[in-house]
């Protein structure tokens, strides 16, 4: 019934995401220039042989900054999704194992989180801890916890009603044992899909937060802050605003394509939520 041929989204998504990861890894070993190297005399250069994508208002090499920015976007995305999984999956399993008031509380919590945009959380955390990438990670992770808890709960409920789980329970396996041995493997596909989609969303959120100055601090380059800096120079060097935005769009596109491809494969009943 399901087509087994390799889908276009999966391939395109894998290629784009792979390229992103490669660039990020490469930036660890090599960038055309040091991304923080300031050279005021060479500022606002258009793209050319020396600087393929030009230079910013301090004469820093845009390509080098974008490459390091990729590492940062991936890192913050990965951290926030990992934290989301760590927090959300146990919560969701708990909800599935103990319906009732816990179920209700989880629903309210989701409501609450929608009223608390990531931006608000990030601003509050920044005011509390001082600025830093950790705040962005925490703010995005909080949202991820809520989504992953809900998805886990929904998917796990279905699994728990199945005969082999009931049999296992009858044989005396405790609730956590059941969750570990039977439920988690059964919902792993759904979770993988959801995690990919959330990863893409996290890159978008991180860009927004660092545009507002709530993410990683200078001189470490980030795509969002590059856009913020570029806005001032929109009249003189509009390309400065084009490249970081395109980098964000391509990364998110890659991950969301990958998510779609994975969904066709591993989540045919569409239990994961289309955040994007």
């Amino acid at each position, binding site marked *: 019934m399901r087509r087994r041929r390799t889908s276009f989204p999966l391939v395109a998504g894998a290629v784009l995401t792979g390229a992103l990861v490669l660039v990020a890894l490469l930036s660890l070993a090599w960038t055309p220039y040091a991304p923080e190297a300031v050279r005021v005399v060479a500022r606002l250069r258009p793209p050319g042989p020396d600087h393929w994508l030009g230079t910013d208002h301090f004469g820093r090499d845009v390509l080098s900054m974008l490459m390091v920015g990729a590492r940062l976007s991936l890192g913050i995305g990965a951290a926030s999704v990992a934290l989301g999984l760590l927090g959300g999956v146990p919560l969701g399993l708990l909800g599935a194992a103990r319906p009732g008031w816990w179920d209700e509380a989880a629903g309210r919590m989701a409501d609450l989180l929608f009223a608390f945009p990531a931006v608000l959380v990030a601003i509050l955390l920044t005011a509390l801890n001082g600025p830093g990438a950790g705040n962005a990670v925490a703010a995005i992770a909080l949202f991820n916890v809520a989504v992953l808890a809900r998805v886990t709960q929904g998917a796990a409920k279905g699994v728990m009603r199945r005969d082999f789980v009931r049999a296992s329970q009858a044989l005396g396996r405790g609730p956590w044992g059941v969750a570990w041995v039977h439920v988690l493997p059964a919902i792993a596909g759904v979770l993988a899909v959801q995690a990919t989609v959330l990863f893409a969303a996290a890159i978008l959120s991180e860009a927004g937060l660092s545009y507002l100055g709530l993410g990683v601090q200078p001189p470490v380059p980030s795509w969002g802050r590059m856009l913020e800096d570029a806005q001032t120079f929109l*009249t003189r060097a509009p390309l400065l605003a084009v490249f970081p935005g395109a980098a964000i769009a391509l990364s998110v596109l890659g991950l969301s394509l990958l998510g779609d491809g994975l969904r066709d494969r591993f989540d045919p009943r569409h239990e994961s939520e289309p955040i994007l």
Partner: protein
Amino acid sequence: MGGMGKAAVAAAALLLAAWPVGGWAQGHSGLVVGMQLEPPHLDPTAGAAGAIDEVTYANLFEPLTRIDAAGAVVPGLAERWTVSDDGLTYTFTLRPGARFHDGSVCDSADVKFSLDRARGPQSVNAQKAYFAAIDTVETPDPRTVVVRLSRPDGLFLFHMGQGDAVIVAQETADTNKQKPIGTGPFKLDRWAAGDRVELVRNPDYDGPKPALERVTFRFISDPAAQVAALLSGDVDTFPQFGTYEALDQFRKDPRFAVLDGTSEGETLLVINNARKPFDDVRVRRAIGHAIDRTTLIDGAMFGTAKPIGSHFPPHRPEYVDLTGLSAYAPAKARALLAEAGYKDGFDAVLRLPPPIYARRSGELIAAMLAEVGIRLRIENVEWAAWLERTFKGRDFDLTLVAHTEPLDIGIYARPDYYFNYRSDRFNATEDELSRTLDPARRVALLQQEQRIVAEDAVNGFLFQLPVVTVQKAGVTGMWPNRPLQANDVTGVSWK
């Protein structure tokens, strides 16, 4: 359904065509003034925000004396005054026809109320110290106010001309924040929160009528939007224009005039003198030698600023050029660090408040100090946190801010100031200065103070914060300089 989409697109296109913006054809009895920040309220006696004075000073409210474009004290609400020989008694005579915007007469009782309110126990005046020398305020008749001081105060008339000292009526003092009722030549017409304040000419003003019938203050925080608003003609004049990278463009454009003014804002890399390793003067001097001011001014301010070598504005006659004491010499900086025991440099935190001059200079300085081994971590903070932790709490390594109060080198003598600088030599000089009346000796003392703080390398002295006004070529009468935070538009007209 497809039709709906087309209709929406068509409607959007219509909107685009029907509402072109552009104020170049505007009538010449109005003026639109661009400002970066919006005032939180419009009562200059109840807040330190410069934006309050920039809207209200001289336009809505008047103090007893006034500060003019050159920084001199001239008559305000008081048309004249006399000072007793001992410098302790000031007798002010009020303008006979002065009235508040609500029609009530402004008399000596209002002056007494305003001064007593500012110095009283319930006072929330941001500059209460201005009124500290006042002993009594007497009102022998409705037009005469006698102020007796408990000690001579050479700056009393200057302070009485500040926005914090404007005269308000008892009946409206509590509501001035939203409905300012002053004695000025303009009154408030409307305040579209978040966007603009509009003033109209006060027909009942007793002094000379301003040429403008309507003044609009527009608040535009975004640099790109500031440039666009000027280019499109939406804004007529933008004092304190902060988008330095766009200045070239305006200087070349004959439709605009760019006024370069002098400012009182010494921009400093503030060093916590009490904290290791900055308590060592060699480390502080090393920082000075590691900073390339030319590149800094070029990179952060696009060339629009004058370098300083001490805490003093270059436009004043007492100024001494001490930039040579901290000339750019990275090798010397490294040597000094090694001498102080930091051959491999050290780590520190540079905390930056929101203004763009601070953020940009901070990034460049971090890169410059890295060259000599001082590794800075940058922390961008908001004003609330900066005031609490850096300024009041003195919990910081380095920060970067412009000190805009006029003639404020005396802060280096304050024992509890956030520089944490202590110098008997400076304190002795400051002490002598406060007792000295001889002009020549005063100059010498002020110059000595500049030398002491430069030799002690108390802070990194960077540049004088520029004051630039960009406006349409036809506007005349805007203040080019900023002796105080104000946009006095009472003398502005169109050519």
